[in-house]
């Protein structure tokens, strides 16, 4: 029997009445790559937090190197050789690689010895083929390299077990291959790797063993060699995963409503984020925009709604040039609605009551205000109506929106953006952080608006959601649209290639 580096027996964790983990067994072989699979809410994050000492289990035991032990804190975990790589990197942008690695390292004495540390880091980096210059500031490095700095951090502290949380969710497709290579090299060096994911192809490529979690319970633990991707998917979801498209009436599309030609804009850092984007959207059509986060999708939504100015290019709605129009006019005159990605930072004012958030974008317009004076009666009546029709659960209209659940907040935003009878609706990451029921409600609302003849732009990183509702899918990479496909053409290989920057014409 091969050496078990880490063994969890019957571990449970409760949050109040909620059983996040229910008698979980985990057996991780030394020097292997072990994947933990599961959907959102399956318990992966909780399990990982226990592994690296952030939470303590309510039941069960943890054995490290065959000895029963406790992981009391993340700091102690590192001492015990357990290193954690978070999804959001713990790196200080303005400091160099070396400075980040030695941050908080005990035993450094009065003065930093950055030169020595840098030399050691270079060597370590070379051993693993990471190719990192220790004197470079983090902000200059691409995401893939930053992740490697995180790995170097834990290796520098002599980690034997390296835990990664959804490591490829922030990487571009071409960086993913490099990352998986890096994992293989860690395995060759005798390290034990545990990684949390829901990407089956990656597991198939580098994984040795998998543990599948569903609703806090282990539904399977097996060798990768003994199973297939399809079976793994079934173990994750509990049924055969079929791309099921929702009911979409086959009405013909209307006129072209939105016409964008050669849009160019730059982001807050001054870097060009849109490099000549062109597309059309017809009435009653949903155009999806897929792609890894950070390839210009946010800027695209912002130039369409007027929050960001275009550098060049033309934008027309129903033939009318809207490039000079302000945000306010685009909403009220032209009729462009926007459900933003960030509910809390953009879409809502958390410390305002529900009623105020309902009128957030329309407060200057009758019936919500007359001659500058807010009409509380009308506001409450209409807001109350929306709350009922969209099933927003709350205690009262005066409640601060901060206290509503994510799903209910999103329903409120949708109500606001849809009830004003717009011509164009832009939604960005509409299902982020929502549970299955809320996701269904969102998708249904989007399809309803499609049936009403609106032109809809649906931006999301979740391919499944896009393919569920969209009529065409545009893929963005590095500020350009690399291709526009129909759902049937949108196989993982083609989308993956487009996301990775390989434009349609280049695909053989």
């Amino acid at each position, binding site marked *: 029997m091969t050496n078990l580096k880490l063994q969890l027996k019957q571990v449970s964790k409760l949050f109040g009445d909620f059983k996040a983990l229910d008698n979980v067994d985990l057996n991780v072989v030394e020097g292997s790559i072990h994947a933990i699979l599961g959907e959102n809410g399956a318990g992966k994050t909780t399990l990982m937090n226990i592994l690296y000492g952030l939470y303590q289990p309510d039941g069960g035991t943890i054995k490290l190197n065959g000895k029963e032990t406790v992981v009391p804190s993340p700091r102690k975990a590192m001492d015990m050789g357990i290193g954690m790589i978070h999804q959001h990197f713990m790196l200080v942008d303005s400091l160099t690689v070396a400075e980040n690695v030695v941050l*908080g390292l005990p035993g450094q004495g009065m003065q*930093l010895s950055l030169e020595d540390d840098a030399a050691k880091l270079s060597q370590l980096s070379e051993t693993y083929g990471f190719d990192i210059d220790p004197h470079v500031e983090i902000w200059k490095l691409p995401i893939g390299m930053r992740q490697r700095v995180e790995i170097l951090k834990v290796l520098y502290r002599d980690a034997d077990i390296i835990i990664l949380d959804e490591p490829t969710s922030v990487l571009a497709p071409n960086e993913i291959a490099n990352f998986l290579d890096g994992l293989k090299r860690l395995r060759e060096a005798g390290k034990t790797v545990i990684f949390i994911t829901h990407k089956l192809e990656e597991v198939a490529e580098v994984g040795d063993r998998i543990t599948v979690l569903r609703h806090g319970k282990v539904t399977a633990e097996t060798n990768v060699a003994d199973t297939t991707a399809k079976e793994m998917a079934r173990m994750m979801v509990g049924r055969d995963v079929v791309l099921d498209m929702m009911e979409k009436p086959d009405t013909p599309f209307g006129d072209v409503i939105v016409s964008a030609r050669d849009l160019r804009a730059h982001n807050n850092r001054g870097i060009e984020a849109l490099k000549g984007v062109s597309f059309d959207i017809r009435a009653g059509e949903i155009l999806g925009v897929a792609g890894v986060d950070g390839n210009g999708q946010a800027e695209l939504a912002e130039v369409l709604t007027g929050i960001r100015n275009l550098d060049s290019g033309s934008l027309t709605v129903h033939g009318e040039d809207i490039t000079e129009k302000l945000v306010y006019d685009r909403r009220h005159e032209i009729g462009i609605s926007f459900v933003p990605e960030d509910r809390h930072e953009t879409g809502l004012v958390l410390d305002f009551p529900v009623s105020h958030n309902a009128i957030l974008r329309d407060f200057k317009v009758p019936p919500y205000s007359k001659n500058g004076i807010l009409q509380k009666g009308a506001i409450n009546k209409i807001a109350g109506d929306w709350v009922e029709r969209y099933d927003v659960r709350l205690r009262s209209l005066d409640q601060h929106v901060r206290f509503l659940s994510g799903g209910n907040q999103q329903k409120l935003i949708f109500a606001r953006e849809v009830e004003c009878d717009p011509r164009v609706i832009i939604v960005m990451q509409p299902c982020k952080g929502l549970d299955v029921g809320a996701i269904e409600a969102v998708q249904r609302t989007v399809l309803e608006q499609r049936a009403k003849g609106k032109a809809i732009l649906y931006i999301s990183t979740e391919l499944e959601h896009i393919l569920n509702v969209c009529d065409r899918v545009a893929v963005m990479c590095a500020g350009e649209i690399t291709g526009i496909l129909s759902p049937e053409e949108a196989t993982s290989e083609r989308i993956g290639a487009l996301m990775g920057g390989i434009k349609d014409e280049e695909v053989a």
Partner: protein
Amino acid sequence: MDIFTNLNALTDFLATSLRLSIPIIFAAVGGVLSERSGVFNIALEGCILGGAFGAAVGAFLTGMPMGGLVIGLLVAGGAGLILAGLAVGLGINQLVAGIAINILMVGLTSFLARLILGAEATSTLPGFHPMAIPGLSAIPVIGPVLFNQDFLTYLMYLTVPFAWWFLYKTPWGLNVRAIGDYPIAADSAGISVPLVRTAAVVASCMLAGLGGCYLVLSQVFVFTEHMSAGKGFIALAALILGRWNPLGAFLACIFFGFSDALQLRLQFNSPDVPYQLFSMVPFLASFLALVFFAGKVRPPAAIGIKYVRGGK
């Protein structure tokens, strides 16, 4: 202008510039420390005043300038603790907390000064007098300017490079810089964000207090109400212009010292021109400098934001 023709006048002018910039230097370096850790410190003004008050009281009660120094540092440190308690502990808006400290210091020092110093308020206090460094002080022009100064000035010569070394060459300085930019990373590395911030704030206020001690113990040897007269705010402008770097802040302070010395000289030479036009110069200079040069400068990324653990 005689400073360009007469060596004595030049020496005089440079010496005055240095003396005028010293309280601001102390405060600005302190400000750099605090703001680098992510906490705005507009209480520098109040801490200069508090330090001055403490120095006067301490020197008065103990008869020794060192006694003044100790009490001055304690008072400023106390103000720093309150600021840290409000801004870091309770998480109140850092700017509001700083202003509150300033108002508190003005009121407390005015009242307590009259109470403790009472009738003796105008008599000269024991202080630090210039001690020439043999040899170095004989160098023409810069000799008397730099090397015939008092204890606190020499302390300042050490403080500025020490602050630079601390911030860039020690693990604690690294912690401070990390916390000011991205506290989550420091927290996950096991560093206590509230502890480091509190220490930075208290140290920063104590440094500003040193500036106040200098005013009383090395410059005027007496305490007057409101004697900080806006120096704490000029220090703030200096640290912004110096891009939150101790050396940069130091240079900016020297610049303000020059402008202050210049306006005094101009005032002296043109007694008919109203003095206000001149006394406005440091503030006007700070204002213009900020408007024209600081527009594009970025403070530490996490400054002013209350750090709450548990955010994703």
